[in-house]
């Protein structure tokens, strides 16, 4: 802890005292020892700034902090600075400490700066942010409130204060500040996310859904909102929406543009600190800022291949595909076996329709890590599209060993198995598992219903269950394919009149909306008229069942890595 009690409780009186002293023309003469000796004759209670612990720090960091500290000592020792100038000296040094996570030293600097310049909102704001980072919420609240006294319209302070109050369980006060910050564009999505959580905490599911949905609309990449939204829908009893959002959950929070915090983080000097801030920017979805951070870090540590891959990913996500490609090439030039660089290079090559080149990269990735899930998924999908189903199946199986519940890989595996003529029992086992792990993904229920309705194998066929599955599908989403599969299930149970009626309706709809289905619906209808069930479960080139997608954005944005730098 620091050497004084409440951070801001004494700030105003101390600074008032300083102003009074200045007005009376009193000159203060700081101790020659600088910070350690306090304020000499005036005995103003400025805080001692502790030396940060930086055992084994990068030389660049140690040197930067040491220089900054000496400069501050010199400025303080001069004795001719105005309080405002001295506040800036303390505050700027605090920023440098803060950027290097030397919290105790930064805290002392900010508090001195806030004491010396009580009309400057930023020092109180930085102090609040520092306290909030360290879980010292009561002090954070005080500091933000101080910043808001100086600038009542400071939206970022309202938002951060609202978050701190929310963590303290002070819901009314939190709601008040969050609502104010929700009126400003820069903080609106983040504030609504917090308001949604606040509503969820009080089991006001309707309000939570409203606020979170709006937050998601404003920040569609903020995939963390989806889990919270899923919980709100679940609370309200809307399980299908809950599952749909749960499926799309991710790790990105709503981005907040905070120039003050960005300015602080940009004081970083060591590459690790720069990389750390860059990763934080990635997590906030601020890819341009992240790219800048990685570039700065790489200027100090140009051989860091992992950081360069992260730079490539950030560049791609800003839309600068060519720069991303260049960075990946540079990584592979020095580290030809780098698995993630090879994988992402393959993804980029595919995006440019260079399939052979992509396969070269993917093979290189697999040489380094034979079970690399992403590469296996991509190779599986390439093979599936090429009609090499057995090979596709093998890739998907390896991918699923690593990520057993990956829905797209499960779909690929099922399609590969079906198209390679795999045993219906094996297909059913995989579909049963997929339906249970992804009840929101109707494609699995669709395929399973077809199989249960029309498999020629008695142990696999289960027409009553096919009816139940298909009815649920159709009732949830009465599209043509779902009508068709329900008719198929009815026919399998001998309910031909219902099958005919449904197929006729589907045919009429398809004639307008989905002409490519017309001929197959007609042939099905002809069978049902003759009281004949479908001859088999699958349709060649079923347009409803395409190969799973290969999304470069997903690969660049979401593919996990344990070593981002």
């Amino acid at each position, binding site marked *: 802890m620091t050497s004084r009690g409440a951070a801001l409780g004494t700030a105003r009186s101390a600074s008032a005292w300083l102003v009074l002293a200045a007005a009376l023309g009193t000159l203060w003469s700081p101790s020659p020892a600088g910070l350690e000796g306090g304020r000499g004759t005036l005995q103003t209670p400025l805080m001692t700034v502790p030396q940060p612990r930086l055992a084994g720090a990068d030389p660049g960091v140690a040197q930067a902090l040491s220089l900054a500290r000496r400069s501050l000592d010199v400025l303080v020792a001069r004795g001719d600075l105005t309080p405002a100038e001295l506040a800036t000296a303390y505050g700027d040094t605090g920023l440098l400490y803060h950027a290097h*996570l030397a919290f105790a030293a930064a805290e002392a600097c900010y508090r001195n700066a806030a004491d010396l310049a009580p009309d400057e909102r930023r020092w109180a704001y930085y102090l609040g942010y520092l306290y909030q980072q360290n879980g010292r919420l009561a002090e954070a609240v005080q500091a933000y409130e101080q910043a808001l006294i100086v600038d009542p319209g400071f939206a970022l302070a309202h938002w951060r204060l609202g978050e701190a109050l929310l963590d303290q369980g002070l819901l009314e006060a939190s709601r008040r500040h969050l609502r104010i910050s929700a009126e400003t564009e820069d903080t609106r999505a983040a504030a609504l996310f917090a308001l949604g959580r606040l509503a969820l905490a009080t089991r006001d599911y309707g309000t939570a859904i409203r606020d979170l949905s709006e937050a998601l609309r404003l920040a569609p990449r903020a995939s963390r909102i989806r889990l919270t939204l*899923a919980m709100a829908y679940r609370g309200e009893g809307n399980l299908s929406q809950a599952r749909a959002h749960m499926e799309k959950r991710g790790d990105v929070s709503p981005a907040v543009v905070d120039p003050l915090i960005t300015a602080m983080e940009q004081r970083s000097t060591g590459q*690790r600190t720069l990389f750390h801030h860059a990763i934080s920017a990635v997590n906030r979805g601020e890819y341009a800022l992240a790219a800048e951070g990685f570039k700065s870090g790489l200027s100090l540590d140009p051989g860091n291949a992992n950081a360069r891959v992260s730079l490539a990913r950030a560049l791609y996500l800003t839309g600068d595909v060519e720069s991303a490609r260049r960075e990946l090439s540079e990584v592979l030039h020095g580290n030809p076996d780098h698995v993630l660089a090879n994988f992402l290079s393959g993804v980029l090559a595919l995006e440019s329709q260079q399939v052979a080149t992509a396969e070269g990269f993917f093979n290189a990735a697999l040489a380094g890590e034979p079970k690399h899930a992403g590469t296996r998924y991509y190779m599986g999908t390439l093979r599936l599209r090429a009609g090499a189903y057995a090979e596709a199946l093998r890739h998907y199986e390896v991918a699923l060993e690593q990520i057993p519940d990956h829905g797209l890989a499960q779909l690929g595996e099922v399609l590969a198995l079906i198209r390679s003529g795999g045993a219906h029992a094996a297909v059913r086992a995989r579909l049963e598992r997929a339906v249970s792990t992804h009840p929101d993904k109707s494609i699995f229920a669709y395929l399973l219903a077809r199989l249960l309705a029309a498999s020629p194998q008695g142990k696999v066929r289960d027409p009553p269950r096919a009816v139940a599955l298909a009815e649920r599908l159709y009732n949830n989403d009465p599209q043509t394919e779902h009508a068709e599969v329900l008719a198929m299930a009815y026919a399998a149970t001998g309910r031909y009149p219902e099958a005919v009626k449904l197929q006729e309706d589907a045919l009429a709809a398809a004639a307008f909306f989905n002409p490519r289905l017309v001929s197959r619906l007609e042939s099905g209808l002809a069978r049902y008229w003759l009281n004949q069930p479908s001859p088999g479960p699958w349709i060649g080139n079923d347009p409803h069942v395409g190969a799973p997608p290969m999304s470069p954005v997903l690969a660049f944005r979401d593919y996990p890595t344990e070593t981002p730098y």
Partner: protein
Amino acid sequence: MKIQRRVIDWLGPPALLSNALAPIYAAPATNAGQSAYFSEISAAVGIDFRHFNGMSGEYYLMEIMGSGAALFDYDNDGDLDAYLVQGAMLGPGKRVADALSPPQSGQPLTDRLLRNDLTVGEDGSRILRFTDVTAESGIDTVAYGMGVATGDVDNDGWVDLYVTNYGNNQLLRNNGDGTFSDITRKAGVGDPLWSVSASFVDIDRDGLLDLFVGNYVHVEMNRHAPCRAPNSAVDYCTPLAYPAQPDRLYRNTGDNRFQDISRQAGITSEQGAALGVTTADLNGDLWPDLYVANDASANHLWINTKEGSFRNDAFFAGAAVNMQGAPEGSMGVDAADFDGDGDPDLFVTHLTRETNTIYVNDGRGWFEDRTITMGLAGPSKAYTGFGTAWFDLDNDGWLDIFAGNGAVSLISAASGSSGPLPLQQPNQLFLSRAGKRFEDISARGGAAFELSEITRGAAFGDVDNDGDTDILVTNNNGRARLLLNDMGHRSNWLGLRLVDGSGRDALGARVRVQPTGGSPIWRRVRTDGSYASANDPRVLVGLGAFRGTASVRVHWPDGNAEEWRDLPANRYFRLRQGTAPRRR
């Protein structure tokens, strides 16, 4: 009374069961003049254990993660003995002399077994004393110790030990004569992965305790490279720097043998860096489920399919991540019905800058993160929590919380921390306000809560048999501390030891205590939870001002239920499955 004598098997000599309690130590006053809840009495009662973490400046992750402790009655004399897990020197070629913090002189670097020699006078006065019986017990631990689990694996009525290590784990069979035998090899449970917490649980309800082992990450000593904090200073690595390890599920096949069914049970289908484990019927289907607290990755909620396998439902159940959708650094965990609605809820301790998280069960195994409204978010954000439990501190019938704290990175350590391992943080105590909110009452906890140490394990149990819960706290690179509850026994209580037909503690049994005219209280027989530690299997139910009799309905792990009526307060009872009186 006559009927009770016939059906109730007393726990121990009548003197132990007296309500005429005279505290061993007068409760010291806090600064505010109120009595403190706990006295720290380890030195006074002969618990002289200092953890050695083997650090030599290399920043191995293992050195800041241990170790735990167990409270268990190894000699069946009716009081809780203590098992304390010890570390070792770490690093290739390193000798103890290289340690930055030397070990305690005069003690070999092995786990310790301390026998509780509690004596209770006829007037109810108690003398608590622990005697180190490690040497005569034959216990020989061989690796860098992390944690311990307790359970009677062979249904012989003597509690056995499973010790988790960085290195091969060990199963130590209690021979019933004060000694233990290492049966790891025969049992087939010597998991070589880095294990921390484990739990004995009868997953298939066949009457034999199976074993779940939570494994952390893979750290190769020979390829160790120190990590850096974001500010470039040398610091401990996060678990994300290492591959997470698969957990293990061993099925007890009898005759002290286990079969590794991790794969077919589905447990290896998902990985996470497991630190805490608790088992309970979380979805109300009368089958035990598993909840695994993972460090820096989503927690697992393994729902028992009743067919020898489990499926992870943590995300949709709402217990994988916090309300913001973020995985947290989960360490300690406990499951208990803190809000009195009859289902087990979850509490998980986390890193500094995260909250400890309370997941409230709706009875179906779906949870809501209610940390904020329970008042637990703010007070926990500045601390890194490890050992924890829901326990009834003041015996008012509502479960309170202990959180043992200690940082894991130099960046997040309190600025006042010092020494060769400056990760110290104070522990915390939260009092339940009728299951609706928790209040941080650490300031009233006693002198032990003014200390700042690196707490890891915490084992909970009634060490002096006075009807309230005491805590054995272990500190990394520091002393073990016994916190004696000085306040709980001032309220009324009912103590239950539930055993199955073989006399084994019925881990997983649920008990509904119904004070006459009062609200029902649900508790569970467990030794697991917390962090790397094992708790008293007895169920202690606080009754507050209620002094009458209570009826007790036990839902045994095999699905059967029995009821005992008119049990008087302020005593321990041993209830054996199949012995409840039949009502006409």
